[in-house]
């Protein structure tokens, strides 16, 4: 192919300033439109979650019944109220119930309350939990969530980051010599990822906790917690092993397989052959010709991974009794604790919207072919 070098025409240089303003205009218009649509998306998503969590008002009936029951029991069983007149006591019961319902905002119509939840949620004013408390005794949703966050970040962080980096490295290795024994092994084993992590968890508990008795069944640290920092972290490590292993096992082979196939598709491009023909070292070919164009996808995966760190693994955490966010969410649902359900959903939604928004810009940074808003 012959390359004709043409002299740059004057006209192409002249409107440089207007091109820059048009870029600014295009990008800013894109930013505004994109932010608006994402915001509307988040609002609708959260509103739907609130509606489902409220069960169209049925949860209110459950909570009202529960309050009635508890207050009546409390007043009837209280000896100091025993001598009261029947009517006075009935009045007291009704008043206490009304006060309790007002405290929880149950006297406000459901539609109004849904909007109140929505506006509070959108301003990240997560409010107070209904039934759950943090270990330090607080009912603040944000405190409850923050308290469980480290456990989830630890478990998910270690497993997901290990999974991400090890599968990229191994996939690169395999794509270099595809068709060999290890490559075939990974291809053969990739269907094992159809099995969810908690399932591997049960097998791992069976082998390492029940039969071999070398690792604990679940929990985060020994009870009582070891006094010294070193012993504490050793105990933590012991408890961390099985859940991490099950999370890694359940997506390890598929993840390698996907990246491998992906790298293979990119390494069969003409420009890669060209680079090899030029005699560039394999390291450079991989870094500059194969990895570079796959970067947008890798970054997307990484961004989505960061979001999953926040959501935690509900079922795996439940199986391993890991005190993380996923299990908290499950417990909250069981206790009809709507503020916590909404709280964790809104944070997830915001993180996701932010990531989607930022990714567009990151793409244009790493891939010169991509233009923001075009």
């Amino acid at each position: 192919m012959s390359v004709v070098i043409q002299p740059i025409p004057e006209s192409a240089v002249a409107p440089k300033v207007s091109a820059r303003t048009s870029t600014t205009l295009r990008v800013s218009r894109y930013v505004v439109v994109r932010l608006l649509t994402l915001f509307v998306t988040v609002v609708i998503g959260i509103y739907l979650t609130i509606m489902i969590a409220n069960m169209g008002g049925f949860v209110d009936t459950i909570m009202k019944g529960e309050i009635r029951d508890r207050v009546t029991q409390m007043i009837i069983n209280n000896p100091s109220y025993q001598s009261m007149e029947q009517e006075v006591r009935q009045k007291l019961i009704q008043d206490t119930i009304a006060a309790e319902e007002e405290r929880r905002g149950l006297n406000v119509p459901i539609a109004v309350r849904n909007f109140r939840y929505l506006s509070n949620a959108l301003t990240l004013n997560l409010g107070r939990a209904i039934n759950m408390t943090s270990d330090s005794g607080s009912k603040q949703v944000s405190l409850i969530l923050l308290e469980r966050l480290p456990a989830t970040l630890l478990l998910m962080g270690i497993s997901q980051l290990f999974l991400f980096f090890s599968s990229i490295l191994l996939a690169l290795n395999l794509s270099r010599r595809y068709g060999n024994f290890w490559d075939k092994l990974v291809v053969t084993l990739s269907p094992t990822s159809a099995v969810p992590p908690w399932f591997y968890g049960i097998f791992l508990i069976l082998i390492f906790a029940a039969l071999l008795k070398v690792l604990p069944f679940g929990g985060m640290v020994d009870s009582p917690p070891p006094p010294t920092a070193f012993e504490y972290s050793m105990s933590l490590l012991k408890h961390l092993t099985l859940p991490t292993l099950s999370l890694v096992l359940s997506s390890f082979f598929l993840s390698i397989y996907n990246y491998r196939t992906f790298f293979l598709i990119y390494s069969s491009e003409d420009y890669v052959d060209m680079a090899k023909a030029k005699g560039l070292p394999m390291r450079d070919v991989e870094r500059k010709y194969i990895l570079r164009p796959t970067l947008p996808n890798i970054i997307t995966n990484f961004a989505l991974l960061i979001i999953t760190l926040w959501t935690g693994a509900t079922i795996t955490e439940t199986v391993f009794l890991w005190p993380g966010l996923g299990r908290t969410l499950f417990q909250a649902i069981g206790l009809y604790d709507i503020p916590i359900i909404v709280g964790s959903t809104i944070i997830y939604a915001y993180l996701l919207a932010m990531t989607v928004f930022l990714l567009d810009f990151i793409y244009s940074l790493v891939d010169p072919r991509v233009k923001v808003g075009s």
Partner: protein
Amino acid sequence: MSALKNSVQKLFYYPSAVFGLFVVFLLVLLAIYAMLKIPYSEAIRLWRGGEDVWYQNPKFAAPAWINYFSSEKYAESFAVKTDDGSLSSEFTPGAEGTGTLVANHIFDFNYDTYPQDMILYFTSEFAEKQPFVSLEWLTPDGRIVRIANMAISRQFTYRFAQDEKLKARLKTDDIIASLFSDPETGSPIKGQYQLLLTGTTFEPGSLINAEFVFHGQVYGLAGTDHARRDLIVPLLWGAPIALAFGLIASLGSSVLTMIIAAVGTWYSGWVDELIQRITEINLVLPFLSILIMIGTFYSRSLWVILGATIALSIFTGAIKGFRSIFLQVKESMYIEAARAYGASGPRIVFLYLIPRMIPLLIPGLVSSVPAFVFLEASLALLGLGDPVLPTWGKIIQDANSNGALYRGYYYWILEPTVLLMFTGLGFAMLGFALDRIFNPKLRDA
């Protein structure tokens, strides 16, 4: 059509596809067998049945076949009764309306563990005078142990292990162990045991029926759970339910996804825009949390969960994949030809666009079956399984909440998990191979 045949032939080049097909075929057979062997209503009755249905079974009994692999032999369970002659009995009328019933049961006991319990259930008919029963126990070494003498009411249950008088007489706390062991050494004696039951009735027409239930340590093909239920029922019935749930969910969600993507790309404009917005909203919704909420708040019925699963799985990333391919197909010549002869929009969508995509649909459809099968099991594990249907996930949940792993009832958790694992792997392997056949781009890679 020949292309499809060709594809099916190619399937046999892949060992994993052959394995996958084999597993799926076995599962279908298992499902058909389950439905023929135990009708639906009977399965529900058995699964929901309490002590009155399952009193003959021991609790937490491992399957009987573990005796082949274990050096220590576990006692097998059995139950015999006079009604159907399995407990041999003879009734001889005596003078003045009295009668004597002699029933004896001789059985081999060649095990190293004692049974969990032995129980006699009596039913009798009489007007005023209660019949009288005495029991004797004959051991292989020739001892005769007097067990009990008692008058029996119309419904009477005699539990060997709880007879305080017998405990005092045998000077032991564990009657069952004492009955089966050598009084000198305390180790079990193997051989033929005999239970001799002599009953006397004191009225004409008075009757005694007896049932001897022997709760061993192992039971049947699959063992039993905490409620004495035979695990074979949920293991068999788990197959059709898992298949139905997995296939309907994956078929429903992928076909609907494809139709919506086709409609969106064809009509473009606001329809397409709306579909894309809904997809983004759906991305924000927490899938598992919503299913948990539906399970907790609304209904735990499998079919409600199935509907919600399909609804939430329509507007996912897959819609974008279909959309990009439809956008290419939309520009093809044959579509233009159809448009030229005046085909209507729906006609083009359903007769031109969608048929073109079916080969691409199949691998994804098969590959997504395991996810749905495991979703059912996951929800069951969280205690949100269908309250009526016997499923594999329910067994795992029962086992997990009864501490099967802590207490060593490994069979209980292994049986459903192995079945689920095979189901998942079978569909996944088949899906992988199909993907490589229908997407030739992947084949060399």
